[in-house]
């Protein structure tokens, strides 16, 4: 079901010659913020200058890729549309399901759309910013990682920005459209706290997905090729989050909350916004922990990345 879009997106991400173009003037702030937390953590030492330097390098590399593929505008438009359509099929599946039922696990269509829209947008943003991370395994195997270690720029930045593909913007756009539609239709008594929670979910979600990407990449330093494992966590996790928690077994839900904190991406905050009881029974304030969990995830990802790089530099493979 939801796998269609996921598989397609992955295939496109891994496609070497794929081109995307457009201009980088419309990068949403949420994406910058998500990236920021990553780099801050990875560069470590809390040095503001180092973060600024890393961000500058990221922008340089991204700008170059965007510029260099501008020549293929038509190709960009087509691949971006393809990306958009493929991910849209995900949601079409859900809509079709609702033509036979009125609620799914007690959730109405706009509510499911809300879950779907927030996750898809956050995931899309992380995928746009750090989607090239799963190429690390190949770089380790063919030795091209060595050349990245020769440049005066953090390796993480170079890996993340490599072959930056603006066409992945299609997924964000699709997620944002679904989210906008759901916000207009969902039956919620909006309070300032609930309104604030929506952008928090997006930023926190982007950071958490990004942290998972980085962790998966860090693992590839050792495992050689863990991108399949990484995708089972991210793309699989992404699909699961697009359905209400009640659909899945209680144990699985618990596992997702604690093992892979992806639930903070949207389940807990969304349940709070929609005024639903939480199946695991966590206290209400947990809904607002998304940014904290995101920071924690980034810290773990940063540590994992540093450990991976250290191990690479001591073994050479």
């Amino acid at each position, binding site marked *: 079901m939801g796998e269609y879009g996921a598989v397609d997106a992955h295939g496109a991400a891994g496609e070497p*010659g794929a081109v995307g173009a457009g201009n980088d003037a419309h990068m949403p702030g949420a994406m910058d913020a998500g990236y920021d937390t990553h780099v801050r953590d990875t560069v470590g030492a809390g040095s503001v200058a180092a973060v600024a330097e890393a961000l500058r390098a990221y922008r340089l590399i991204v700008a*170059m890729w965007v510029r260099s593929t501008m020549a293929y505008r038509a190709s960009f438009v087509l691949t971006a549309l393809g990306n958009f359509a493929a991910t849209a099929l995900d949601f079409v599946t859900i809509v079709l399901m609702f033509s036979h039922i009125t609620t799914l696990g007690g959730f109405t269509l706009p509510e499911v759309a809300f879950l779907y829209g927030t996750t898809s947008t956050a995931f899309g943003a992380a995928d746009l910013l750090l989607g090239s991370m799963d190429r690390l395994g190949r770089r380790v195997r063919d030795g091209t990682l060595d050349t990245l*270690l*020769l*440049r005066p720029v953090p390796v993480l930045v170079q890996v993340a920005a490599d072959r930056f593909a603006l066409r992945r913007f299609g997924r964000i756009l699709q997620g944002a459209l679904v989210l906008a539609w759901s916000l207009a239709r969902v039956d919620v008594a909006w309070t300032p706290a609930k309104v604030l929670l929506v952008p928090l979910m997006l930023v926190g979600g982007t950071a958490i997905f990004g942290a998972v990407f980085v962790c998966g990449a860090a693992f590839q330093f050792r495992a050689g090729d863990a991108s399949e494992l990484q995708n089972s966590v991210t793309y699989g996790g992404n699909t699961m989050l697009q359905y209400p928690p009640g659909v899945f077994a209680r144990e699985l839900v618990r596992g997702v909350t604690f093992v892979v904190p992806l639930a903070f991406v949207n389940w807990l905050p969304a349940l709070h916004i929609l005024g639903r009881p939480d199946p695991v029974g966590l206290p209400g304030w947990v809904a607002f922990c998304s940014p904290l969990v995101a920071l924690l995830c980034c810290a773990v990802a940063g540590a994992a990345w540093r450990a991976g790089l250290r191990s690479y530099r001591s073994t050479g493979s």
Partner: protein
Amino acid sequence: MERAGDAAGTEHAPDSAAEPVIELEGVAKVFDVRHRAGRGLRRERREVRAVDGLTFTVPRGEVVGYIGPNGAGKSTTIKMLTGILNPSAGRIRICGIDPTRERTRLARRIGVVFGQRTTLWWDLPLRDSYELVRRMYRIGTARYEANLARCVELLDLSALLDVPVRQLSLGQRMRGDIAAALLHDPEVLYLDEPTIGLDVISKSRVRDFLRTVNAERSTTVLLTTHDLTDIETLCRRVMVIDHGRLMYDGGLAGLHAVGESERTLVADFAHELAPVTVEGARFVRAEGPRQWLAFPAAASAAPLVAALAARYPLVDLSVREPAIEDVIARMYGQPG
């Protein structure tokens, strides 16, 4: 930069007071190699000492040939000197910087060229790659343009600037890579097999360029190669490494002495002769009126020629220098 113009100059003996740019002290690199032992799932771990206690220094402006058979530890050394790999033991300083702890700071002061793989961006035209290098290294516009213009001129890159790297031939790509490694005026240049797979013209262009750069900027160069013409034309000092240890460190001439190499005298006589006998040389082979005689590389050819001319109807002769391949092969070939 402090050193006067012709650092690569005509004399050997590098200024002993010159500051060392590359310093190694007891550097070792041990890899843990795992492989399946016989049948079953049991895996054996084996320690491989790729580099085993290297100690040497290279003063500013020197061009050093770093040679040895495959698997001797040449690439591992270069990777440690650039900060790609951390040494298992010992101390490394490049321009006073510890590559392990300050890799990115060191990166601004060194240039690296791997013959086997490019450091350029595969899908981008050379010009874009260079532009990105300029920004990454924060090279001032004036300096960048001067350096680029110089590289384009000397390496004949003008027609290639707009071609994506993946469409370049090996020789073109190598020239492009060398230019990229020099745009930020590195103090040290590491070249790992820079002429591998190149045609004769590309090779000589690359060598000329490296000589010019060394002479103009006193760039310190460490060069690994299998092509000993590279060494003969570029390096006054040669280091030979095998099994991770330094076997020889000195001038090219000394290498011949150590390797007991021989020069060859090719003599053309007026007519076919029985193998000639001359003191200080040994007969190698004959082909019609032409005969090959070997004599120690350190000995002079003059008395030999005089003796030959006195005793035999000598028509023409030439002296062939030993190939360093043979010299090194002999060094390694010797038992023990």
